[in-house]
């Protein structure tokens, strides 16, 4: 019996996969149906997970005697006042606490993580390595960092004129290379996602031999 249900699931997933990829031809009702189904299922599942989260990380603590947990539960509840015509402003308390805590948690460490540690790591590079390719890589890397930073010095216009412009141009070329790399990697990601679905269609749905 379980096998029949598994097989039904595979068929539904396969039909929805094809429906989603039919968008590559053009927008159509089948794609719309698959899109709305996916969103509906995702919302339903997330809702159940959210309820589970409220129970595990809130109510369970409260019933175990940890009274302070009433505060986040009330703040969470206040967020639903968003839909009240006159008391809607109460939701701001919940939102402000969430945003405030989130920013505080990340910002405090971000200065060191995204600035100081990277400046130290870049400044501490040993340019000369046993491997000539690594040495060349380090030189190119440092040139890229220096010229890219140079490109963004807009305070002194004379740095972007005459021969000095060459440095800024080099920085722009390095950035273009980086964007090209990012675009190429995006293509690889799309292939990877599509291959995952093709694998499902070919081997689990059509049951071709692996």
């Amino acid at each position, binding site marked *: 019996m379980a096998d029949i249900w598994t097989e039904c699931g595979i068929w539904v997933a396969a039909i929805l996969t094809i429906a989603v990829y039919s968008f*590559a*031809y053009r927008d159509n009702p089948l794609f719309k149906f698959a899109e709305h189904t996916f969103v509906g299922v*995702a919302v339903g*599942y*997330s809702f159940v*997970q*959210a309820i*589970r*989260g409220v129970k*595990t*990380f809130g109510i*369970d*603590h409260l019933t175990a005697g940890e009274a302070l947990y009433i505060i986040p539960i009330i703040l969470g509840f206040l967020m639903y006042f968003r839909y009240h015509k006159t008391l809607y402003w109460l939701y701001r308390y919940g939102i402000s606490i969430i945003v405030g*805590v*989130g920013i505080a*948690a*990340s910002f405090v*460490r*971000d200065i*060191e*993580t*995204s600035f100081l*540690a*990277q400046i*130290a*790591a870049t400044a501490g590079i040993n340019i000369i390595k046993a491997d000539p390719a690594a040495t060349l890589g380090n030189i190119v890397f440092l040139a890229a960092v220096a010229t890219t930073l140079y490109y963004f010095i807009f305070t002194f216009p004379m740095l972007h004129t005459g021969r000095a412009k060459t440095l800024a141009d080099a920085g722009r070329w390095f950035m273009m290379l*980086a964007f090209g*790399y*990012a675009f190429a*990697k*995006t*293509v*690889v*990601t799309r*292939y*990877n*996602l*599509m*291959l*995952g*679905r*093709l*694998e*499902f269609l*070919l081997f689990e749905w059509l049951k*071709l031999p*692996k």
Partner: protein
Amino acid sequence: MAKSPLEYIESLPREIIYTILIICLAVPLVKPLGLPVPISSRVKEWHQYVEGLPDGAYVLVSVDYGVGSLPALEPFMVATLHDLFERNVKVVIMTLYSDGPICYESLITKVNPDAYGKQYGVDYVFLGYIPGGETAMKAVAENLHAAVPTDYYGTPLNQIPMLKDISGASDFAMIISVTPSGDVAQGWIRQWVTPYGITYMSCVLAMMMPTMEPYYPAQVKALTDAGRAGEYEYLIGKPGSGIRKLDAFSVAHIMLIIAIIIANIAYFALKAQKKGGA
């Protein structure tokens, strides 16, 4: 007026390009070409870090992806768990994605810890979905038992043998995160690497590599993209979904390069024709 061949190539209908692409991706999947599998230094480095874990070390594995990116990320996660379960280490698994538990179920079915003699609660545990994003990372780092009262199946953490003596980030030797999100990948650095100096390994979608490269190797000790799953499978001798995709990747890349060359030739030839006609 009928289009000339050059004009037709320049504005080739996308349906044709997509059809050729699907063929290029599907045929090598069904009939692998057996192209060589060179293993990149990034994958070797990843494996070396796993290999270097001392006996009994605790590793936090965060399945930070949902079903949307599962096809791309799961093969690398499967290979990583195979590599971890080969060793005498304790694996604590969690997720920051609400649909992460679905991914965990799929993952653990494919890895099959029983085959390695690993026992749930003794050698590995699943904490489930922990909401809050970066604040959740911080809470788990500071006090695991306070942040997560039970595992995914409702067992209190203090009743799980392998978690009795674990209090937070300082008890872990390594953290591994596989994610499509740059914010998540960077969040682990902010909350686990910067304050505690934990060895951090990150596998991201290929398109997130440029975002994460600046953190490597000073803050992210091993960084790779999920497209390299096949190399990892080959390296550890556990062929799976990733290795099947490698030939398809190569053929699709060749097709794309040829398409770019043909389109450029058509573009410049048409430009020259128009110039000549004018």
